[in-house]
């Protein structure tokens, strides 16, 4: 079984299904797949989602980034997207450094406070990662840039709710504070997902395949969304090279 859509198209579709009509949803820096997913959701089931795409003036109602920052800080942001060099079982992510000794890291990354704040402020956060590997999904991140859950006496408006990769979707079990396998994306198998994940995914015996992208989803993504991204100068090069190229003529 071959897919006739790319990993990026698959992930954009899976993301679009998570978006709720009427909420305020934002994607951050270098978040092409979430941007496409948001625009797709608006074409489908969420015509009244308020979309903010950081870095694309066409999808930024505010003049200054601090107005966006404060909107989130007030708890008004419904959905945000983060990635991470490492993600662990507790939903912690690492955008700072890799290596066993924090004082002498092997590699440094830009880190950043903004995304960390948003992980606590957005009602729901979706972690997206195109690489599903034991290097990306680890038992314990080398550095906690933002924590998946917090003690109950901490002011926090939301938590990660899903992890979306080309192989699978995990969901956050907030009772246990752990990520668990929710579905897998054929032709990947549960075994393959388990094999490529560096932490225990919970009881996977009844996990089902996610519904494949529909023709409607793929059609809108490859036409309306692709065109919209190019027209509005929203990652236009990415849209040209990643959306619609596997289309069967």
């Amino acid at each position, binding site marked *: 079984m071959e897919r006739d859509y790319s990993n990026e198209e698959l992930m954009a579709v899976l993301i679009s299904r998570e978006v709720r009509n009427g909420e305020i949803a934002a994607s951050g820096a270098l978040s092409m797949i979430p941007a496409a997913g948001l625009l797709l959701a608006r074409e489908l089931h969420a015509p009244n989602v308020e979309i903010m795409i950081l870095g694309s003036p066409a999808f930024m109602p505010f003049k200054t980034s601090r107005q966006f920052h404060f909107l989130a800080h007030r708890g008004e942001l419904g959905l945000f997207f983060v990635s991470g060099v490492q993600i662990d079982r507790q939903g912690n992510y690492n955008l700072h450094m890799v290596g066993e000794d924090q004082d002498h890291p092997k590699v440094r990354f830009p880190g950043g*406070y903004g995304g960390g704040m948003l992980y606590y402020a957005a009602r729901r956060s979706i972690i997206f990662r195109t690489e599903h590997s034991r290097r990306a999904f680890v038992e314990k991140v080398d550095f906690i840039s933002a924590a998946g859950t917090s003690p109950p006496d901490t*002011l926090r408006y939301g938590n990660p709710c899903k992890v979306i990769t080309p192989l699978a979707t995990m969901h956050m079990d907030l009772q246990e504070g752990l990520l668990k396998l929710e579905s897998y994306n054929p032709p990947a198998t549960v075994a393959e997902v388990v094999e490529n994940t560096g932490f225990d995914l919970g009881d996977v015996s009844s996990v089902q395949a996610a519904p494949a992208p529909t023709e409607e989803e793929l059609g809108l993504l490859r036409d309306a969304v692709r065109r919209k991204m190019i027209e509005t100068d929203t990652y236009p090069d990415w849209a040209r090279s990643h959306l619609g190229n596997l289309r069967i003529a």
Partner: protein
Amino acid sequence: MIQAGSVGAPYVPVLGLVGTDLLKRRDDMKICPDPFNPEVKTVVAKAYRPDFAIFHAQKADRRGNVSAGWTNDDTLLAEASRHVIVTVEEVVDELAAAEAKGSFLPSILVDTVVHAPFGAHPAGCPDYYPVDDAAMKTYARQAASDESFAAYLEETTYSVTSHEDYVARFVPAEWRGEGAGGDERDSA
């Protein structure tokens, strides 16, 4: 924290950071109960008030008002900092708040304006010139090791004798018009 500094609050409560390794390494942030609601805790961040802020902008006038381009947050930095130095592409006679194309920094926030065309190079300055991709690639390549970065610094910084020298040596010739080469200082 720069936002607290900009509003003159000695500290501010902020979301996030709880449970992170970042928080462990910062003595300017700590977990603190809400005085009105002590069973709820947040991080509080200490105000950050830099002695100096230095940044590049598009345009200033002779009174020290600055137009700092679309949608940026230099205003926050200028407010928080005790002294503000702005390098600009262009100095005009008068710049009113209404005609400033981007964020308007009134001269009351600005200490010194330096006329330095191409002052953002190798980064770009919207409405004036784009990022110099070739120069950026050179930087990225040479920044990879301490040795090559030392050589980069020597070539692009330590050996440079003046702003004009930098512009002549590093700014693409086709970008340089009659605007280049000025070097005036105006006190706001």
